[in-house]
């Protein structure tokens, strides 16, 4: 304990001898102003990676970028949207997941194609693009599976395309 007392006393005396109150205020001011200015620099903003993509295109068209791996009816045409189910249906938590390239920023995003279940097939806007689809023996990578098996009702209605993250670029 004595050693600590001595140590702190020595360092406090040393600071007191080599610095002034004005000097302290000056340094503190510089740190505060400088620190506040750092986020304004363009380099700081450029390093922020957006978690969600900028959107472009028509979500009711099969050409919409998020649908690159879809196989089914687009919920956008069935009373829902690309990330929500139509009323009266339930989103299956179990789903098939792929990646699609966003044409605006050129990055690949992880897309979860959650099926909406509980009503008979929607019948509008059938879309089959199948990028990254694998045969049924790789069931986790096959979009031919009826993913409504994870919902209360296994009756398929339509498919959503929810962005769940940014793909890792190897």
């Amino acid at each position, binding site marked *: 304990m004595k050693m600590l007392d001595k140590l702190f006393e020595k360092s406090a005396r040393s600071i007191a001898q080599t610095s002034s109150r004005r000097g302290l205020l000056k340094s503190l001011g510089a740190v505060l102003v400088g620190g506040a200015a750092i986020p304004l620099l363009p380099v700081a903003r450029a390093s922020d990676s957006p978690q969600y993509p900028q959107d472009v295109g028509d979500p009711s068209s099969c050409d919409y970028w998020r649908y690159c791996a879809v196989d089914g009816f687009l919920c956008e045409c069935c009373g829902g949207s690309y990330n929500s189910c139509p009323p009266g249906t339930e989103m299956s938590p179990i789903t098939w*997941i792929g990646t699609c390239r966003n044409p605006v920023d050129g990055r690949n995003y992880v897309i*979860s194609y959650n099926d909406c279940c509980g009503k008979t097939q929607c019948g509008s806007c059938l879309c089959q693009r199948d990028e990254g689809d694998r045969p049924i023996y790789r069931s*986790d990578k096959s979009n031919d599976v009826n993913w409504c098996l994870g919902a209360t009702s296994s009756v398929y209605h339509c498919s959503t395309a929810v962005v769940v993250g940014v793909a*890792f670029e190897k």
Partner: protein
Amino acid sequence: MKCLVLILLILQVVSAEVAANQSINAKRAKFNYQILCQGCHVGDGRGGKGVPHMKGRVGYFLSGQKGREYLVRVPGSANSALDNVELAELLNWVMIEIGKKSTPADFAYFTAPEVERLRASPLFEAKEYRKQLVKKLFPLAAQ
């Protein structure tokens, strides 16, 4: 001098922690989880109809050697398209991010050679095996 020793000790502890964390590329591990596991286990690992609930639980399997081996031999791990390095990394990430408090803070990380050895004997009756394993590892919980 004593002060210097203390600082050196602190630096050593910090660098050891950094080294341990460096063996996981969190972005790659999360992506592999999303692409290969999340479809069934869902984003936070809580699973669903017929899919095991891993969130805050999966780390309990580390309390016994058979449990640890099960985590690699289970079909989702053993038969995955990942190489041994990325599978070990993904398992470690799952233990930390999904297992949360169920995972012991000082658990031994899975390594690529360990994963290579264990995935060579994948489980075929994983559901029944897990049932028996849970009974053995956690007799009170299984009652």
